[in-house]
């Protein structure tokens, strides 16, 4: 059973990575990162069941809390960028190019 859960978790994680790499919209990129974190959460809970320990549950809760904090900051940045440029395509942000 545990293999199935871990496979699903890794699959979701890879989907998230794909989303971050291929999408150009800031909003979708942040959503993909959330997907990666939630994939990890699924893995934590499954492994906690496998090892019969509570560490995984605690870590999953912590990840949720941190993901919420990060989402709050990300949304603030999205609003900030929209105010400046009126668009959320990452290609138009090119002031810092080295």
């Amino acid at each position, binding site marked *: 059973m545990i293999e199935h859960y871990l496979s699903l978790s890794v699959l979701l994680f890879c989907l998230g990575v794909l989303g971050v790499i291929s999408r150009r919209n800031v909003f979708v990129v942040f959503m993909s990162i959330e997907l990666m974190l939630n994939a990890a959460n699924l893995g934590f809970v499954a492994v906690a069941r496998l090892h019969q320990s509570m560490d995984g549950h605690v870590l999953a809760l912590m990840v949720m809390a941190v993901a919420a904090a990060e989402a709050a*900051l990300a949304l603030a940045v999205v609003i*900030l960028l929209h105010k400046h440029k009126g668009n959320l395509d990452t290609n138009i942000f090119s002031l810092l190019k080295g």
Partner: protein
Amino acid sequence: MFDVMVILPLAATGAGAILIMLVAAFETFRREGISILGMGLFAFAFFIQLTVDNSGDIYPFAEVFNGMLVANTFTKVAGLIILACGFFSALAAQTYFTQNKGFVLEFYCMLLFAAFGMLLLTMVAELITLFIALEIMSLAVYTLVGYDRHSVVRAEAVLKYLMLGAFAGAFYVMGAVLVYAGTGSTSFAAIGAVVADSGYLSNPALVGGSFLILFAFLFKAAAFPFHAWVIDVYDGAPLPVTAFMATAVKTSIFAVLANFLLINPEVHQGWVTFLFYLSILTMFAGNLIAIGQQNLKRMLAASGIVHTGYLLIALVALGSERFSGGAILFYLAAYGVATLGLFVALSYLSGQDERRVSFDDFRGLAKVRPYSAACIAIFLLSMAGIPPTAGFMGKFYIIAGAFQAGHAVLAVLGIVSSILSLWYYLRLIIVMYFREPEQRFEVAELTLAPLGTIVLAVCVFAISFYPVVL
């Protein structure tokens, strides 16, 4: 009781941050008052950290929380470096914001919260605590980069940093899942025991997880394949924040890496091959980028990549016979002093709205402001590793350690890279001393930065006398 003593500096920093947050709500405190308060709180936490005696390995919550934190002399000195970096960044900010827009009273609050996360990060002994400490630090630093809402450059910098930082954070979390699946525990000691028992290769989940965690740390430390963001983010951030990121963040990341690799030789052995190649690539990639830069902030960011390379050499040599984390901390202190010194000097020399930032803007500085130019020259020579500065001693300890560990190739390449780096450090010195001045370099009155610059210039020499047991 002793547990509480060990985390007292941590508590002082956190309480200080909350105090500033509350105080900022009142009309009576203005920029000057808050600046002094912020610096005072950093100094206060520094002295508490100095007085806490934690020699030997101490697990503060060994009985209550299953060994979440560890404290030893290594973590103590790393904490001291971080708090000193915080103090001088706050000092740079005090001066910087007399001539630049975009100040909010909560600036120092975020600075202290970031320092809180970093102190915690140096003491972690466990994957959950590591993640939380990492995120406390990162979230505060993201905010510091982008709090000036009216500047498009800052907004772009924070977007890049947040997007890539959160991406790296997700890699870390997935890595933690796999390591937890492979070993059944999240504590460093238990992971180390499993590695020592059966090795990495018999445990595919552990190998995969370690790689993902390594990626996340290489990102945060700005090492080779993940170094590109650093130039843009450092360039886009306000000067004092760049100073803080370049020094304190690097210190905490290397402290936690060293803490992890020092558990036992088997853990270290599995990482050495990768760190070996990464350190070489990081040094030369950083040098190549730095040579092409016209902007001082970008040059310093690129040279920060090179210094990451040297620290990776130290990690390769770490744990081998008679080589402890002392050399890493010495190098971090030497690098921190020189970098902070440059940024503190820039904070009053760059003028209104960061006008002077390129090499050419500092033409003839030595004729107009001889003392500032002399201090900047000292910092640059220390970063390049010219004796008798602290930077030279730091490089000496690291290269001697690499020789002792049997990595002669690494030591020689380290020396080559250090010679290459002279190119861009000496360039600024030449521009300052051998060109005719075109500007008057007027600075704001009544600021602390000139004094801070001189103190740091003295520190460059003072630190080089401090002996490190190799």
